[in-house]
């Protein structure tokens, strides 16, 4: 019998690199990202300061942005801090409540029937549409803004949690039962850990939504906040400050998202991918 698996002599050179194979390349991905950002910054400077093709009113130059930062100084930090504080408070509060109610609904049939119609009716309504009512109910203080941000996160998390519980493979529940887990144990030791990845991705969606809602609410008046800063600057057509506020929101939102995604990558390191 001929052995097809006979060892090749010099097995270690059995697969020589083909002479015309592409040379191993470094990962170009990050370089491309940096390149595009640098090109955009250069273009920005070129069309504003460089050639003056775009008027200051329509899009401010890098220099005017810098001037705005210097003029605002600590006020910018106060406004950013106020917005971030509201976002964090409403996000944490609304999400926690959303997960709790979602878990209760997934566990108790009658609660699901009782709350589901309300949630399904409120869910498609953009939270900002409720701003007039919120001002009537809570005035223009912090309470109303926190309520709106929390409501947005709550809606995301309630739905996310009930769906996640429904997605737990039944075979996990059966396995746990036949290994001696009581119903309570199945809940704590199987359902809760299994839904963690979906809950965390809900947190990320919620955090982005909280920024959108809080800033919009601040447009209508606040003692401090990026939304207020942008609105006030726009009344005097102070476009550098408007742009600065926008960038400020982007930086904070990206930073928060990065923190959440880092934490969730660690917590769900067991999940495939």
């Amino acid at each position, binding site marked *: 019998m001929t052995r097809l698996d006979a060892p090749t002599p010099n097995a270690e050179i059995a697969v020589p690199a083909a002479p015309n194979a592409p040379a191993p390349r470094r990962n170009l991905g990050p370089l491309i990202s940096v390149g595009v950002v640098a090109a955009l910054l250069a273009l920005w400077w070129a069309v504003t300061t460089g050639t003056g093709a775009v008027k200051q009113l329509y899009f401010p130059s890098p220099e005017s942005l810098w001037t705005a930062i210097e003029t605002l100084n600590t006020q910018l930090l106060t406004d950013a801090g106020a917005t971030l504080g509201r976002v964090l408070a409403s996000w944490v509060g609304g999400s926690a409540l959303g997960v709790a109610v979602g878990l209760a609904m997934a566990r108790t049939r009658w609660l699901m029937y009782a709350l589901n119609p309300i949630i399904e009716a409120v869910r498609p309504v953009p939270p900002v549409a409720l701003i007039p009512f919120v001002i009537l109910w809570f005035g223009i203080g912090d309470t109303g803004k926190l309520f709106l941000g929390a409501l947005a996160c709550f809606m995301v998390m309630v739905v996310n949690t009930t769906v996640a519980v429904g997605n737990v*493979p039944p*075979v*996990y529940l*059966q*396995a*746990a*039962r*036949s*290994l*001696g*887990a*009581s119903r309570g*144990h199945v809940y704590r*030791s*199987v359902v809760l*850990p*299994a839904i*963690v990845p979906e809950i965390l991705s809900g947190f990320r969606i919620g955090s982005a939504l909280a920024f959108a809602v809080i800033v919009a609410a601040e447009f209508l008046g606040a003692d401090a906040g990026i939304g207020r800063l942008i609105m006030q600057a726009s009344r005097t057509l102070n476009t550098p400050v408007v742009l600065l506020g926008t960038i400020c929101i982007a930086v904070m939102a990206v930073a928060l998202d990065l923190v959440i995604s880092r934490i969730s990558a660690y917590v769900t*390191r*067991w*999940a*495939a991918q």
Partner: protein
Amino acid sequence: MSQIIIDSVAKVFATSRKRTVALNETSLTIDDNELVCVVGPSGCGKTTMLNLIAGFIRPTVGSIKLDGREIEGPSAERAVVFQADAVFPWLTVADNIAFGPRMQGMTRSERTERVERFLDLVGLSEFANAYPKELSGGMRKRVDLARAYASGPEVLLLDEPFGALDLFTKEAMWSALKRVADAEPKTIVFVTHDIEEALFLGDRVIVMTPRPARVHSVIDVPFGPERTLDLRADPEFQAIRIQIADALREVHDDTA
């Protein structure tokens, strides 16, 4: 003692559109510490039978008893290795195996000792702290087997556990199963489509009819507990294999 008596059981699944009789007039007695292999056409009701013994579903008619007690729901006395991957992905290999012992309130030291023993028996000691995603399909099945065994059941129900594995991995799984079964004998019901597997592992092989599943024939396997892979070349082994294949062909042709 852990004898299973299935007594004229019927199981009917009724949905709004369809009524499926999965089992009808099924009777079977499985003795203490016996390894029974069940073969039968796809969709005949084998998984349904295991689910009934596991207590996940209740029979429509008839009764299933373990040691004279009616089976009323899932319990740690009957562990299951499912057809699908059921290893918990959020637990490490060691924690998966410790799951049963933990649920049953064993102390930490008892648990560690048990986990180490079964890790060793299924040859996964090196992977104690790995997550299931880092394992191959065959390794995950070994974790599943060790987890079921470590919970210390009286009965082990296996549903085509090695169906998706290649021949050599399967052979390794057979030895793993034999090792753990020798270390702690149990009453085992093993569903499979692989006749050689059934004959190699089983004390008896049960051939089921197409849906609704009933017992078509029972083959007593004449080989002792000491079996090596060479047994498959034995003329008697081959003769029985053909006998089972013919029985399956016969029940299959009856419906065709």
